[in-house]
């Protein structure tokens, strides 16, 4: 009869169900209550945006001039605006545009930012100087002012808003990527990748950047919140999405003229939608940062 080999730690360890890195991450994330709240808020917003065409009670652009500026009622759950359009339907459809702008602009910014920051950080020297000084020039302008400037030239449209927000976000992602790459490239596994003969692009993209995903993900999540807010601000200023397309910013923009007439619902409800989504994305970003940090979670 075989005796169990208790002296071998490998055998003892194997009898327990093992936990993968992903499992550890999920456990740490779920243990953080605020992070889960954030995730739920973001998921609600995404759900509302994706299903707006079906769940919105009315056409967001259908005007009913006999029922203008009505307060919330059974017919219009969140009231109507100055053209008698249903606010609930407009906010739901606005979710679509606002989230799309936030998401796509940051996806584009992440692509370029990771590329620039990664190359600058890994190659160093003069390339680093040139790339990062260009990024510094962009960072030196307040992002919103820069966005307004570029949009004034390009003209307002959804595509241009996405482009502009992406451009002004690239330096943020590039900085975070570069600093993460600088710490990772000193690790011996990068040297090991060189010793086995991997060329520089494989070392950078497979080995170094794979280990920089945590800070980049966190930064990108927080930037999505910022991008949505910026889209709102640009639309509010009349530089973003053109009416009648509803976005949170344009609804707010239209509502501001009526606040003094005590017509509060046109401003309050899109404001709440913005606030909850911002809160959700920020909680989610913080939660991701903590859950992805191996020093915080316990093995």
């Amino acid at each position, binding site marked *: 009869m075989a005796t169990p080999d208790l002296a071998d*730690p*490998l055998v003892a*360890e194997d009898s327990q169900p*093992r936990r*993968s*890195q992903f499992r550890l991450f999920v456990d740490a994330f779920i243990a953080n209550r605020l992070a889960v709240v954030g995730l739920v808020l973001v998921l609600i917003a995404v759900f509302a945006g994706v299903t707006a065409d079906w769940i919105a009670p009315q056409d967001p652009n259908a005007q009913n001039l006999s029922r203008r500026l009505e307060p919330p009622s059974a017919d219009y759950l969140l009231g109507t605006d100055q053209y008698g359009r249903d606010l609930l339907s407009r906010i739901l459809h606005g979710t679509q545009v606002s989230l799309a702008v936030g998401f796509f602009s940051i996806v584009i910014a992440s692509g370029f930012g990771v590329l620039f920051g990664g190359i600058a950080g890994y190659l160093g020297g003069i390339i680093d100087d040139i790339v990062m000084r260009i990024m510094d020039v962009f960072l030196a302008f307040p992002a919103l002012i820069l966005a307004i400037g570029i949009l004034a030239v390009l003209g307002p449209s959804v595509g241009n808003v996405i482009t502009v927000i992406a451009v002004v976000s690239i330096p943020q992602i590039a900085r975070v990527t570069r600093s993460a790459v600088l710490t990772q490239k000193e*690790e*011996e*596994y990068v*040297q*090991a*990748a*060189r*010793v*086995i*003969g*991997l*060329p520089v692009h494989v070392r950078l993209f497979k*080995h170094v950047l*794979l*280990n920089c995903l945590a800070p980049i993900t966190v930064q990108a999540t927080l930037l999505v919140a910022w991008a949505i807010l910026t889209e709102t601000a640009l639309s509010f200023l009349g530089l973003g999405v053109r009416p009648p397309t509803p976005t949170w910013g344009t609804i707010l923009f239209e509502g501001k003229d009526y606040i003094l007439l005590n017509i509060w619902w046109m401003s309050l409800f899109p404001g709440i939608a913005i606030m909850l989504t911002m809160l959700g994305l920020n909680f989610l970003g913080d939660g991701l940062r903590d859950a992805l940090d*191996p020093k915080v979670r316990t*093995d």
Partner: protein
Amino acid sequence: METLLSVRGLTKFFPVRRGVLLSRVVAQVRAVDDVSFDLHKGEILGLVGESGSGKTTTGRLIVRLLEATAGEVSFEGQSILDMTETAFRPLRRDMQFIFQDPYSSLNPRLTVGHTIAEPLRRHGVASGIPVRHRVQELMDIVGLPPRFSNRYPHEFSGGQRQRIGVARALALNPKLIVADEPVSALDVSIQAQVLNLLHRLRRDFGLSYLFIAHDLNVVQHLCERIAVMYLGKLVEVADRDALYAEPLHPYTQALISAIPVPSPRARRNRIILKGEIPSPMNPPEGCYFHPRCQARMNICMRERPRMREVKSGHHVACHLH
């Protein structure tokens, strides 16, 4: 004996820069300064010295993890330092490296099987199913259960990780392995296991090692020849037995006298070195060791001693000999 690796006048200076925008070089750190030695086929050459003596830098220069300032390294008669990185890449198959820190030398996001398979795929040694077989075989060779190949590094202990590092180095069937203090980060009980593994692999696969260490006990256990470094320079190269029985350089004598003897009654003449290792940015005139040397003569302060073969196979750089 056939020479596998020949190092001649290997030198590495690190520039020290001042200034942010238009920086200029204000000093040079002489990390490795005119080092020459040969490594024979199938031998284990120990390279010892204290922290900052340049032994790790020497190892990294040889596998071109760093670019040398001057000097020549030839591997099987082929000069490798002036090759382009692309031209050198096929030669990397023959020269592998084992890293000091098993916690940092494995990519934490890749499974160990992936890490071991990477050199195989890169050099087209194997692909597809044969890669998996080879990985399992390699894990078996270094004493790890092959079924753990889809685990991540954080699930292993330090000793196990170092075995993974050994398996990766072994994957390409190299001729030379430069081992940079491969056991200094491990517990003493685990050190012996890994050293025995390295010893067995040498026998089974006809490997040669350049074994970098600061622990003279470890070196005595494993190496046939030993080279002693001080402040970027080689001071003595000799066969192990000759070096331990009759160290010629005063620095080697001090090092060997510092090895603890496992007996409470043993009487020892310990040579206590005075002072600290000088800054490699500003090394002393003459012999680099003279400020700490107990046998210092006048000439030592003026003239740098050259490496001489004073007995067969016993080289020393000291004015005493």
